[in-house]
């Protein structure tokens, strides 16, 4: 018991440092209240908020949120609302109570669109106590963003560099002016003193000499033409090659979070890559598999989003609008607004590419062509997608023959004929025009 109180207090104490007086007071009050309430539930010696949190996350979080209605109602403070014995019964088997005609149970069941709550007969009363203890914790105040302190020591070095450079330039300028003035003064003194000084023989200026030398002009112009040609060719070759193309999408979707942090397999969302020519932009119902319950991101993630100037929670709201999900009623309204994504990887119509061939048959990693997508906050085109790029890979890569009955016969025949064990795609006919152009 003491431990729990301590925990709460330490948490509060930490926060107190950053607060002004009124909120400090209220917080203290809250802490007191909490201490009181925990004491109520702490009759049993083993009430453990940490264990409660773990149980909550494992069993309840799929349908419940603490402060917001999800499939089921918000759970913070639920222990205060209902009788504890009633709650035990309800959690262990709610449907029984509904059927039995318990008025509260029927009411709650009706309030939540008649969605049946999973029965948890395996949870002991202690477990439930722990969970209730967790749900009875006060709502943490939103972390007020710290205003960054301006003019730290680290920043000053950049500024000073500029200043130094500016000062140097000024000094040089002054020197030049001084030199000019000195020369003028000396000249005047010399004139005044009647000192004769000879001006040097007028020589042809360098540029005139250059122009008069036809050979040099010829060589230079050939050089210039070649250089121009080289750069023009280089420039033209990149026309239509959109490496690094990272358009702004209607919903800021972060592959970094999904594929990187959360380790979701590419083919979970892009499932048609396994069997179709297109990898498929996932339909929004796939997003809702998870986002039905993830309406908000963790505070740390939210803070990360600030780096990119994006509020992830708002982006999730965009998804809800598009798919027509009403968070309050936890149901689909049927008002759908399809999302117009901007295509990143565009192949011309005359080139046929099939994902299934590469993903399923050859077992190529998505990253081979699409780059480190799991690190990309904004998806960009990683590969040039030029024919040369395709062909190079087809020349270098061996066909993945292992365990594929289809290749068995061809492989046997070819190895008999050429005495090779491994075949590149090119040797299998992967460079033929008609394989990709039809």
């Amino acid at each position, binding site marked *: 018991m003491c431990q729990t109180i301590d925990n709460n207090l330490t948490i509060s104490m930490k926060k107190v440092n950053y607060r002004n007086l009124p909120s400090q007071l209220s917080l203290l009050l809250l802490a007191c209240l909490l201490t009181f309430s925990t004491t109520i539930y702490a009759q049993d010696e083993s009430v453990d908020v940490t264990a409660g949190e773990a149980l909550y996350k494992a069993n309840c979080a799929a349908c419940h949120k603490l402060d917001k209605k999800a499939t089921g109602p918000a759970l913070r403070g639920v222990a205060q609302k209902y009788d504890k014995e009633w709650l035990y019964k309800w959690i262990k088997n709610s449907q029984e109570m509904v059927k039995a005609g318990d008025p509260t149970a029927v009411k709650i069941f009706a309030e939540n669109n008649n969605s049946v709550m999973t029965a948890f007969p395996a949870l002991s009363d202690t477990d439930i106590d722990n969970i209730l203890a967790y749900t009875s914790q006060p709502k943490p105040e939103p972390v007020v963003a710290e205003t960054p302190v301006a003019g730290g020591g680290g920043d000053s070095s950049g500024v000073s560099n500029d200043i130094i450079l500016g000062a140097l330039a000024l000094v040089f300028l002054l020197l030049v002016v001084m030199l000019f003035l000195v020369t003028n003064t000396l000249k005047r003194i010399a004139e005044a003193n009647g000192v004769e000084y000879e001006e040097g023989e007028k020589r042809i200026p360098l540029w005139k000499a250059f122009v008069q030398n036809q050979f040099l002009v010829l060589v230079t112009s050939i050089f210039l033409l070649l250089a121009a040609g080289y750069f023009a060719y280089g420039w033209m070759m990149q026309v239509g090659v959109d490496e690094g193309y990272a358009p702004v999408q209607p919903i800021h979707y972060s592959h970094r979070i999904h594929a990187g942090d959360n380790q979701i397999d590419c083919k979970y969302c892009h499932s048609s890559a396994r069997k179709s020519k297109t990898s498929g932009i996932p339909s929004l119902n796939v997003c809702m598999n998870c986002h039905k319950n993830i309406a908000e991101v963790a505070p740390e993630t939210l803070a990360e989003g600030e780096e990119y100037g994006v509020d992830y929670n708002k982006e999730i709201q965009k998804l809800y609008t598009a798919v*027509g999900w009403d968070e309050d009623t936890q149901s689909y309204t049927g008002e759908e607004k399809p999302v117009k994504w901007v295509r990143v990887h565009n192949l011309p119509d*005359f080139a046929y590419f099939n994902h299934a061939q590469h993903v399923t048959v050859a077992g190529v990693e998505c990253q081979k062509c699409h780059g480190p997508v799991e690190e990309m906050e904004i998806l960009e085109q990683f590969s040039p997608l030029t024919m040369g790029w395709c062909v190079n890979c087809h020349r270098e890569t061996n066909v993945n023959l292992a365990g*594929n009955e289809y290749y068995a016969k061809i492989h046997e025949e070819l190895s008999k004929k050429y005495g090779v064990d491994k075949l590149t795609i090119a040797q299998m006919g992967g460079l033929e025009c008609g394989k990709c152009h039809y």
Partner: protein
Amino acid sequence: MASNKKYWKSVEELKENSSIVETLQQNEFVEEIPTDEFLGDKEVLETSSTTRRDFLKYVGFTTAAASLAACEGPVIKSIPYVVAPDEIVPGVANYYASAIADGFDFANVLVKTREGRPIKIERNDLSAMGGVNARVQASVLSLYDSNRLPVPLVDGNEVSWEEFDAAVAQKMNEMTGKDIVLLTQTFASPSTSKLIKEFTAKYPDVRHVVYDTVSSSEALDAFQNKYGTRGLADYDFSKADVIVSVGADFLGDWQGGGYDAGYAQGRVPKNGKMSRHIQFEANMTLSGANADKRVPATPSQQMEILKALTGGSASGLPEHITEAVNNAKAQLKKAGNKGVVITGLPNVTAQKMALDCNEGSAVMDTTKPRMTRMGNTAEVLSVMNGVISGTVKGLITVGVDPVYSFPNSAAFAEAYKSLDMSLAFSMKLDATASLAQMVAATPHYLESWGDVQMKKGTFSLMQPTIRPLFNTRQFQDCLLKWIGNSKNYYDYIKENWTSVLGGTSWSQALHDGVLVSDAEVEMEEVPSSEGNVSMESNSANGALSASLQNGEFELTLYTKTALGDGSQANNPWLQEMPDPITRTTWDNYITVSASDATELGLENYNVANGGLNGSYVNVRMGDAVVEKVPVLIQPGQAKGSIGLALGYGKTAAIQEEMQTGVNANALYQNFSSVQNVTLEKVAGTHEFACVQLHNTMMGRDIIRETSLEIFNTKDAETWNPVPMVSKDHQEIPVTSPDADLWDSFDRSVGHHFNLSIDLNACTGCGACVIACHAENNVPVVGKEEMRMSRDMHWLRIDRYYSSEESFVEDATKKDAISGLGSSLSEYGEMENASANPQVAFQPVMCQHCNHAPCETVCPVAATSHGRQGQNHMAYNRCVGTRYCANNCPYKVRRFNWFLYAENDEFDYNMNNDLGRMVLNPDVVVRSRGVMEKCSMCIQMTQKTILDAKREGRQIKDGEFKTACSAACESGAIVFGDVNDHDSLVFEKKNDKRMYHLLEAVGTKPNVVYQAKVRNTKEV
């Protein structure tokens, strides 16, 4: 030394002080240069704020801006599903079994859909019924017809269905006690039958009359009189030894068609045997073209022939026909129950004679008749006359367009307009619907539910493969609403099918699309015409009573392979499909024999660009006149007879480009296909779009042909010799390695695709042409371009006529030619087809030569060879020199002279959003200036290979398909891997009938042909 010579510029200079010289010295251009003419007058120039310099700046800026803008790629948006349906994986096709039953074509089909839109029609292999012809293949494009009616109309105003229902209910109440006719197509649908009965029970004033636009009433009457049920006998021609057809185009649309597959099976020589086919006919039809012996005979002669064949006595037949009839009779007798006589004469007696004659024949099946035609001429005539005379007060039409198709359409249209109630169920605002008070917009069959009993005991299900594109409701759903049944039609069918299903589950039946069941299903009774007005209508057939007036011709009305009854006239694929016989597109015309043409002064000639021109005639029959009908001289047309196709000349709800041909229905009096008419030449020249300029082979062996006798008794070298070429003055076979200019690749590893075409099985039906169109996004170019031989068909079916009586005689004649005089005159003669020629069909596509002449001449290597045997064409590499087409001996390469997609000049399906939905996303749409050609459907072979790779298995024979091989009902086109020695195509390649087209050229094609064998033995 400097010369002091002075050169005189003109005589004027001789004179001193000539004013002219002086003026010229001062001013070289005496007259002012008329700059104002192109710069505008001075005033305009001065008031303009744009100076010359500014103008140049603008030009420079815009050019630079345009070229810079071109460097930046466009932003392409992608919109995924919000909620993706489970069964749709983008990029993967789904197939659904369904059925077409539009009143003219009835067939079980598989519908290929991509991302929820149907893009192709395939055959359903589970179905034993054929009939997936060119029109059915093309029907998917009619779904995307931009002229479809999007909403129901009441008095021309767009209304909601609720308003429409209310309007109909009100009208029906007002009409109580008045005669209302429900005039429908043949549905052959058990549930629709039941539904109509329920409807007429609720509204007893309504009587149901079935109207087939192209009638088979006489055959139905004969069958009904003999066997009790109304239906058509079914024939299995694969069991026939002798087929004698008297005016029945059973490879065309005779009694609903769909007999190709069985026929072709019996035509391929097996164990030295094949069927013998004798055809007596007036028009040159597909059946006649495939016959072993074809005897031209006018319809009146056909009547006599039929009498003679079936044991009666004939009179007035010419000598050669009598002989042919006697021969046929003897052969029929010999064949016993494996002989069959069929007739297409529109006469109950004639039909009965044929049925009687076939009694006990193994070929004819009368226990399970076909239900695909039900119409009764007498009843339809009474409706027509009833409307005109005013006794019929209300008319509800479903799937038929009587204002277009009734013979006295003008009078009918007038009367129709003043009916108390006119309600049309139609997909388009056609001739009838545009005059109707109420028009119910109906969905296409690919958007509808339905059930069909095409043949007794064979049931099919029709299921929607796309959400309705427009605000449409099908006829059956309307009826359900109107009789107050709250069910939808889907549930209604399901409920109705409990008896049909037997042990099969509904899902299985829906999956298969076809179900053979012994369940007895009650269908509506359609009365027979016998004892009604029918005899009158038949006696009205002057043509059959052989009482020709002087100068009269016997007209046989027929339906064309491409357009049929014309219900798909707004389908550009079908309009552009060449007629298998005349090879003419975008038209109907009078076919006339050469000798009749000479007598009437009618002519056909080719003009400088190759286009075919022809005269016009007026066709007159009593009061009915069809004006300005183009004339095509048809070899094989019986003298004294002419032919004309129905289904053309529609103008309502049809794009202007597709309003082709003349409406022949005015001549379809009493719905009899045989009429006596007079012809009268009128001024003017018609421009045909005919794609074949040369009609004979002139004795060459483009098509190898032999007789069954020689085929059975002689070695293959005698009738299918390998061509010899000369090397160092020694004759060597062209297949010898010494005869090669090039080294051969090793093709023993992996797949090596070959396509085999059996000329015995090919009936020329053209389903492959349309299948190829649909699969490969082949553009439609329009009549003008077709006329200039700029057709884009990747697959064409060449038709050749013999210039003598037979192709064998052609060859003999050619071999006998010697000396200059003889070759000049006789080769000239051989260019003309005989009066009754033998006909042969040959599908020709890219031959995918192993030593391809096109590949060696391409300056940019746009066409190259794959190791799987395909000749690849990289469109984006092509620069359009057209060298390849010039060097191709088979002339199968097609050049995109224009941009055919999204171009207002070519306003066909690729120029509107709806029509483009039919495009196959796996095949690129070619742009202007590139060459294209058959790819051997590489997208299909690649798909098959990928599927096998993904599943980690070998590929079985039969998995590899091309669009044409999949579409071929008769099994003439076989595709496969010849490195798989168990495959059918390997067997075909090593068959003794196998030959290569123009083998002497040494191109080593991957397309092989099976030489044609004709069963020419008389008696």
